[in-house]
């Protein structure tokens, strides 16, 4: 309700053209330890994530299962409430506004889900699925609604006559298209794609990615693209954030990440990309990651990656590195960033 400050913030944001600003976002889940256990344990799903997103760009968020990337998506979507930190969307702090205001604001942020089988209600016809957001926000009625829904389904490459069918009559790729049509219905500014293609056949994956790219141009959309591997976001992202155990360990442009990874974890992720040509496979000196993601309940001390890092030293065990800008637009949270694929930078640590 404090209009002056809101307006002020908005004017600042429009100058920089920043659509979304996430600052020190944290989400701790309290673990249910029973009635008699006094000690509370927390699962630190997201532990201090900050980034910003400019209008029209695509940010890829990459990391292993359990690193908090989907939780970050859900926090931005306001399906989950953040423990700490703020999410400024268009200058508005989404976790501070009233329920009704938030419902209105949801028009501008939409989500595409990973599993096209569970993201569509099996008991509704495609028409009702795509019409739901329009009805919820009371935007169209009667004939107009029908026309709008028909337009939407054709935008995503399905036919009008398929509106009268149920989701189970469609393939995975078609279902994902329906999900995209639903997300598009409200003309959003930001779409969070939570692994939108990982449940699909390889041949269909590229179709969906192309569709998303086309829609981005047509509707001037901003994407957050969540995926578990680098190849999936390579073609769609402008910038990529690599997450590990609830933290962003490296964030940079796509080119920088692929040509000059600074964090050993990013290097590991790059090494994990399969090389289609078997003759090239043996030559590369590949540092494939070993071990599993440590528990987010008791994260390792210092740098959370030190348990799996081949370059780790005593410093890494003791001190948590901060996310610092190493070169323009390229931030990394590592005491010993890599400079080339042969070894580590032999110089004073960034912290010292």
């Amino acid at each position: 309700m404090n209009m002056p400050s809101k307006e002020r913030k908005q004017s600042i944001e429009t100058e920089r053209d920043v659509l979304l600003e996430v600052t020190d976002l944290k989400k701790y889940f309290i673990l249910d330890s029973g009635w008699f256990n006094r000690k509370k344990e927390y699962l630190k799903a997201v532990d201090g994530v900050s980034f910003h997103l400019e209008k029209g760009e695509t940010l890829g968020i990459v990391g292993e299962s359990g690193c908090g990337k989907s939780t970050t998506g859900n926090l931005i979507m306001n399906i989950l409430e953040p423990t700490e930190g703020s999410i400024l969307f268009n200058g508005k702090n989404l976790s501070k506004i009233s329920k009704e205001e938030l419902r209105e604001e949801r028009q501008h942020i939409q989500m595409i889900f990973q599993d096209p089988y569970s993201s569509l209600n099996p008991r509704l016809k495609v028409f009702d699925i795509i019409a739901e957001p329009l009805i919820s926000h009371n935007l169209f009625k009667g004939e107009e609604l029908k026309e709008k829904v028909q337009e939407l389904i054709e935008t995503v490459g399905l036919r009008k006559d398929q509106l009268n069918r149920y989701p189970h009559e469609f393939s995975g790729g078609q279902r994902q298209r329906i999900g995209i049509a639903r997300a598009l219905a409200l003309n959003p500014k930001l779409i969070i794609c939570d692994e939108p293609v990982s449940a699909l056949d390889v041949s269909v994956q590229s179709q969906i990615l192309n569709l998303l790219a086309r829609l981005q141009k047509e509707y001037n959309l901003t994407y957050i693209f969540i995926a578990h591997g680098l190849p999936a976001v390579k073609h769609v992202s402008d910038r990529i954030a690599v997450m590990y155990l609830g933290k962003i360990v490296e964030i940079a442009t796509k080119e920088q990440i692929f040509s000059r990874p600074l964090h050993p974890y990013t290097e590991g992720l790059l090494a994990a990309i399969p090389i289609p040509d078997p003759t090239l496979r043996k030559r590369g000196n590949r540092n494939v990651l070993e071990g599993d993601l440590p528990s987010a309940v008791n994260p390792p001390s210092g740098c959370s990656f030190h348990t799996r890092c081949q370059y780790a030293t005593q410093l890494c065990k003791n001190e948590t590195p901060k996310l610092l800008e190493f070169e323009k637009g390229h931030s990394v949270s590592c005491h010993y960033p890599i400079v080339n694929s042969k070894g580590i930078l032999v110089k004073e640590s960034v912290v010292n």
Partner: protein
Amino acid sequence: MQINKIEVSELVEDSLPEYKKNSVNRMLKLLIKSKTGLIGLVIVLIVTIIGIFAEQLAPFDPNAINPMLINKPPAWLEGGEFAHFLGTDNLGRDLLSRIIIGTKVSLIVGVCSIAIAGFIGMIIGLVSGFYGGFIDNFFMRLVDSFLAIPNILFMLVVLGVFGPGLLTLILVIGATQWVTYARLVRGEVLSIKERDFVKASRTLGTKDRTIVFKHILPNVISSFIVVSTLSIATAILLEASLSYLGLGIQPPMISWGGILEGGRNFLATAWWISTFPGIAITITVLGIIFLGDWLRDVLDPRLTK
């Protein structure tokens, strides 16, 4: 602050008039295809008609006592009379007439008590599962405490205090049976709530009420219907037990359970008194279960071919 007043269902019906016609066609198609469903429907229809026109259909006065006709066996046994087709009971009353008249009360008790139980259980289950937290805890502890009370004892006390009667009987059976539904519905809601389409609905800005009625309820309804049809049987049998204990349907009124329990003492000499109302209960319950199976299929769009 309330901006949109228009109901979702109205809008959808406006925009798609062919929608309803389709579903009626589909229902009929499924009914003809599924033989059990058809059998179930026929049984339920016949029983309902018998229940409605019981007075006209009964060949004799069901309460007319005739000392000359005590414990007559059914017509096809030695000593049986064709007029009293299913025989007579220990007071010489015509068994067929009694069963026909009893249909009404048994059906009313079975259907009404489960309707009440289902309604209460459904609402509590939905609220409890959807909102969680304190509300959930409160209702589930209430359910636990209801489960801890022995059903029959609870019913006996209530019926003892308020006096036996049709309405009290229905209410008391409803009050003990809702627990099953509350737990069932809550469990289903908890699992459906986590599915992506509910999450999607939230992100779309759909209101809670619409989410519950449009997304959660339709997905809960199929298991709900299956359990309710089975429970109608339980309710009819509960009515029988209570009638036997003297706290159910009172003598001038007739129910299947009452006849069944009344014949218990004569099982060795006149087995038919208990057997035929038992068969009536079995057939009716089977019919309802078959019908329930078909209904479940109708409500699941994935099962159309």
